[in-house]
């Protein structure tokens, strides 16, 4: 997509905003619509846009598949471990009350951690899936086209 100067410029302009918006959605989910899942999807969407416009090889350099391999399970592990933290600190599984000094603080911390875990796994999975699709070329049958 070397010819598409316009596309490249506009995408460069757009992608930082998308990443910012993803962060906003991630951490503003307590007050407005949104949360970890949506943030993860938006983050992945920004990355997909990057890969579409600047090429999948560039995208792989920015976020190598080795790293993705660890990000995909990291979010889920964070979530489950937050659950176990509840048990270790004397509550039930996924009990956030015991995480902080007061129940409300604990709830806030718990929700923050959990939503972060969701965001990480979702964005990593979405990018992985995109890579898996886009990295595959097929034998082209002319009659299909």
């Amino acid at each position, binding site marked *: 997509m070397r010819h598409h100067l316009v596309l490249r410029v506009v995408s460069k302009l757009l992608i930082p905003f998308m990443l910012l918006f993803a962060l906003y959605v991630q951490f503003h989910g307590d007050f407005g*619509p949104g949360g970890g899942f949506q943030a993860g999807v*938006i983050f992945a*969407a920004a990355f997909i846009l990057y890969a579409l416009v600047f090429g999948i090889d560039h995208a792989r350099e920015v976020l190598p598949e080795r790293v993705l391999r660890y990000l995909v399970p990291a979010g889920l592990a964070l979530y489950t471990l937050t659950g176990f933290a509840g048990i270790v600190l004397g509550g039930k599984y996924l009990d956030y009350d015991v995480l902080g000094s007061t129940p409300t603080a604990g709830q806030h911390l718990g929700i923050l951690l959990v939503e972060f875990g969701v965001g990480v796994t979702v964005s990593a999975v979405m990018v992985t899936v995109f890579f898996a699709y886009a990295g595959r070329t097929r034998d082209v049958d002319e009659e299909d086209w």
Partner: protein
Amino acid sequence: MWTAAAIALLVAMMMALARAFLGPSLFDRILAINSFGTKILLLIGVLGFLTERPEFMDIALLYALVNFIGTIAVLKFFRYRNLGLSGPAAGNLENRE
């Protein structure tokens, strides 16, 4: 006022959708869907004012940011036949139904 705007948008949405159904070429459909996205965005904004819940604006913002990707993917799809960057530019292709 909001009511009028909402009605205008709904009518416009119907027309755009009709174009998306009718085609005839694929690009007509894409164009219609793209324009449809803008109208949904506006409708959600108007709805936010109608019901006095400004939280809706986040969704409109999302559409403003993300709707673009679909169109780019389509473009990529047509020029390179896949979403990675490997194939040569597509030659003279027939796209009419």
